[in-house]
């Protein structure tokens, strides 16, 4: 029982939903994070399920995904690395059926392969924050309602992910991604870290650029039961090398 919930609002428009949002409220779609956490500071849920879609539309290289699309639907409907990352990001199909892509982006989990991938590709988000805006995931301030996300198939095809976990099916403690364009490479580093790091280098990256990335991201790696920071630095070097060689 989520005792603190006193009301579930079901607004009929984004403007009403946005207007209802306050200190003790949360936007509610899939609810896979919210219902588990049962945050006692939240008393009002703003159900936005009727305001966002669960469609995946492919038009040439452009892919538009409605924010209500489940992670399982993404895993089943899209191919390549995004499908794999959708599966890796959550071990349970039960949860993937419930969890929405909008919720996953809003939560911005540091150890979600899907988030590392989307941040590395720097995808575009459609947000309603009193007005409709489109912004990149790296520029989004976390406010407003995510209505759609936009991906580019070329970016997906040009992105590789390397992850390290105790077992293949276990949550990864180090996740790296690289999106390769003709002139630049964007790297993303996440997992059991204190923040997701993103870096860009010329393509192909030289040894000093890789060393710089490792140096800059070291402070975000954690000393924990998965291993020391030094161990993870070594893994990171291996991961970045594999990404570049894999390309």
């Amino acid at each position, binding site marked *: 029982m*989520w*005792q*603190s*919930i006193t009301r579930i609002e079901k607004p009929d428009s984004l403007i009403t939903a946005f207007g209802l949002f306050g200190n003790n409220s949360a936007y509610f779609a899939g609810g896979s994070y919210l*219902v588990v956490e049962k945050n006692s500071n939240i008393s009002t849920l703003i159900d936005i399920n009727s305001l966002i879609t669960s469609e995946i539309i492919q038009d040439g290289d452009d892919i538009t995904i409605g924010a209500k699309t489940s992670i399982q639907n993404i895993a089943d409907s899209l191919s390549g690395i995004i499908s794999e990352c959708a*599966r890796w990001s959550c071990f349970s*199909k039960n949860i993937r059926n419930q969890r929405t892509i909008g919720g996953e982006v809003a939560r911005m989990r540091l150890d979600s392969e899907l988030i590392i991938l989307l941040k590395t590709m720097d995808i575009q988000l459609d947000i309603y924050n009193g007005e409709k805006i489109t912004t990149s995931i790296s520029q989004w301030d976390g406010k407003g309602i995510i209505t759609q996300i936009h991906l580019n198939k070329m970016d997906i095809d040009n992105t590789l992910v390397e992850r390290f976990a105790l077992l293949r099916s276990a949550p990864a403690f180090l996740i790296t991604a690289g999106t390769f364009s003709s002139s630049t490479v964007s790297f993303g580093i996440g997992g059991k870290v204190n923040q997701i790091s993103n870096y860009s280098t010329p393509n192909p990256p030289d040894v000093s650029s890789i060393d710089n990335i490792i140096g800059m991201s070291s402070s975000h790696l954690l000393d924990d039961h998965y291993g020391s920071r030094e161990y993870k630095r070594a893994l990171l070097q291996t991961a970045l090398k594999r990404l570049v060689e894999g390309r």
Partner: protein
Amino acid sequence: MIRFRLNELKMEYIGHPGLTLMEYLRSIELFSVKYGCDTGSCGSCSVLVDNYVYNSCMLLVESLGGKTVETLEHLDKTGEIDNLKKSFLDKGAIQCGYCSPGMLISLVALFRKNKQPNESEIRETLAGNLCRCTGYVKPVEAAQL
């Protein structure tokens, strides 16, 4: 008031908006829905909602408007799990049995979409149902009817 279908019955719910589906189902004595972790990790409270498998501890009853919920009691009554149940017993795929209803529900969801799933699809389906005594070898064998 929230209206939904539960095991082919029309239900109406008026109550605390924070009640989870797992708590509701157990309160009306549908005990195939097990109280496991209450955090969505173990899958022992699995149910079908519109043919998809969900952890009922992660769903609020208030969010079920217009949906169709099925528990193992109903699937047992309709005979849909007869073969699967027999196969689980024949293969010895049950020890303590706490995870078994969740596993069966997950497999029913799979079989409704895919009559002849391969081992990898079965394993992916069961990944959300944690078992700490039988393990997965026998349940996976049992699911290969």
